[in-house]
């Protein structure tokens, strides 16, 4: 059974290895370059110098912001290109998961392999275990690589808690990959044809992933609030990776003056009515997820997808054992 599994899936393994090699060839040189620049441009030193406080000296923040902007101008495109990596787990579901059972039934070879001296339960268990373990190993390698690569980008403008950034690093991609593979296998036992199984995998993956990321993730834990005056000698720390959910500038009475923005008048103007300072008593109100919630959120989301994957694989094996032709 193990020989058969290897014989049937070795091409898929080879394709995945080539994919991983291409990823390595692209990410290692660019990642090294980015890490060097992060150090050489003084970005890292400046951000580390800000400490852990929520509000730090506005002068220091302003200084660091210009260094960060310089880094962003040079490497911001890398961050945008990295969004493509979000599709990698889906590929595993489409090309490894979906055909596992569906291709056998579609081509009729299930009638050959399920009538040998190996029970269908064992056939399914070996195949599913092999593909799942392979997907797990690839996902670990991929996630570790991207997590390293994203390091400097996480600290220069885009918090790693933010959409799409969160989704390509840490351990979450491992959860997504296992879920995609399990969904593909399960879909194959339902549709019994490869293309519909792939379509079902695609739809199922997107339908779950997007709402959970967009609606669920910001609410995994209550957001924190930060309130600070517009005219002040302190400003929010840009070095601690907080994820800003919403922000705005309010007047003394608490009415919104400007949404989706923050204002810091620094160096301190002659009068609070100076241009862009919103008058006396104006303050910023920021709702945010602290940067140190990255790992708890990662564990939570990965856990959800791993449980879903386990459930789908259980259902797939049960469907295999029951009538499946």
């Amino acid at each position, binding site marked *: 059974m193990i*020989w058969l599994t290897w014989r049937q899936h070795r091409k898929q393994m080879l394709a995945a290895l080539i994919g991983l090699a291409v990823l390595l060839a692209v990410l290692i040189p660019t990642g090294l370059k980015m890490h060097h620049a992060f150090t050489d441009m003084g970005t890292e030193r400046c951000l580390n110098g800000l400490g852990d406080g929520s509000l730090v000296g506005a002068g220091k923040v302003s200084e660091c912001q210009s260094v960060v902007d310089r880094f962003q101008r040079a490497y911001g495109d890398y961050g945008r290109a990295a969004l493509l990596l979000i599709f990698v787990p889906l590929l595993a579901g489409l090309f490894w998961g979906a055909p596992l059972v569906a291709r056998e039934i579609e081509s009729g070879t299930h009638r050959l*392999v399920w009538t040998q*001296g190996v029970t269908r339960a064992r056939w399914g268990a070996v195949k599913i275990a092999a593909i799942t373990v392979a997907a797990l190993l690839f996902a670990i390698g991929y996630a570790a690589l991207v997590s390293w690569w994203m390091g400097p980008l996480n600290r220069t403008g885009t918090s790693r808690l933010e959409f799409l950034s969160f989704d390509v690093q840490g351990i979450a991609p491992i959860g997504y990959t296992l879920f995609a593979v399990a969904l593909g296998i399960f879909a194959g036992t339902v549709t019994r044809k490869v293309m519909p199984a792939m379509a079902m995998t695609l739809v199922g993956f997107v339908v779950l992933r997007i709402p959970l990321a967009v609606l669920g993730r910001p609410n995994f834990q209550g957001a924190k609030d930060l309130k600070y005056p517009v005219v002040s000698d302190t400003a929010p720390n840009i070095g601690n990776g907080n994820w800003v959910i919403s922000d705005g500038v309010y007047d003394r009475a608490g009415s919104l003056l400007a949404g989706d923005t923050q204002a810091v008048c620094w160096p301190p103007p002659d009068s609070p009515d100076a241009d862009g300072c919103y008058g006396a008593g104006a303050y910023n109100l920021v709702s945010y997820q602290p940067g140190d919630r990255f790992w708890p959120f990662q564990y939570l989301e990965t856990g959800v997808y791993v449980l879903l994957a386990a459930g789908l694989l259980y259902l797939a094996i049960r469907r295999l054992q029951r009538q499946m*032709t």
Partner: protein
Amino acid sequence: MTSALETTDLGKRYGRDWGLRGCSLRVPVGSVAALVGPNGAGKSTLLHLAVGLLKPDEGEVRVFGKAPGDSRELLEQVGFVAQDTPLYPDFTVAELVKLGSKLNRTWDDDLAVDRLGKLDIPLDRKAGRLSGGQRAQVALVLAIAKRPRLLLLDEPVAALDPLARREFMQALMGIVADQGTTVLHSSHLLGDVERTCDWLVVVRKGSAQVVGSVDELLAEHRTLIGPRTREGEYSGVGTVLRESHTDKQTTLLVRTGGPIHHPAWNVSDVTLEDLVLAYLADPNAAALPGPVSLPQRGVGA
């Protein structure tokens, strides 16, 4: 006689339609049985139920006394050649043999390699590049090298040309003679199996219509030719299955209760083909075994 395969009121539903219903039959150990019926009669369904690819919706199916399911022991005892003889097209013949050896504890590698050598099938050829006849032969080799006690074949020769068809049947009969395997072989054409089978199962519209030993069936049925007789005016001739009339004479195909002594009739033997066609043409006729363990239902005699 013990049964290799026995079904009781077996039914399998596809959505709202029954692919098989009230199907009761048996195939004795050691027999070479033909499973005959028109397309869509339920032959494939019956074989898939027997090999455990399908589960019954009602009734039961027993192979060597056990219900086929996820049992390794039973899977090893049953060889199955599916319709259109599916093989992995990107596997070489040698890899298919390896598949058989890896998945069956009872596998006989020498038998497989030896037979493929005799058939001149190159071991390094990919299955997708074999001719239809070669594919069928390879599928048969895969089914017999596990040394099954029961061999089920689902129209393996349907897609073959007459020469390949004859070669396949010869190969099959050679194996049966060597190993004493029980065979159930389906076909929508009686010609494929007529010369080789000693047990006959005719299915029609999802249930068994004729089940029995070929010799007994042939002994029980007679063609009678006599003077023009009006319909319904025959007596003492048994059950009339088919009648045809010309101006001067009447021809009957009958199932007799015993010898026919009526002097008006000229009695002769029937061929198996005539017999099967007569039953298939008459949905109300059935020849099911009498006092065996099977209840009779569905179409009544």
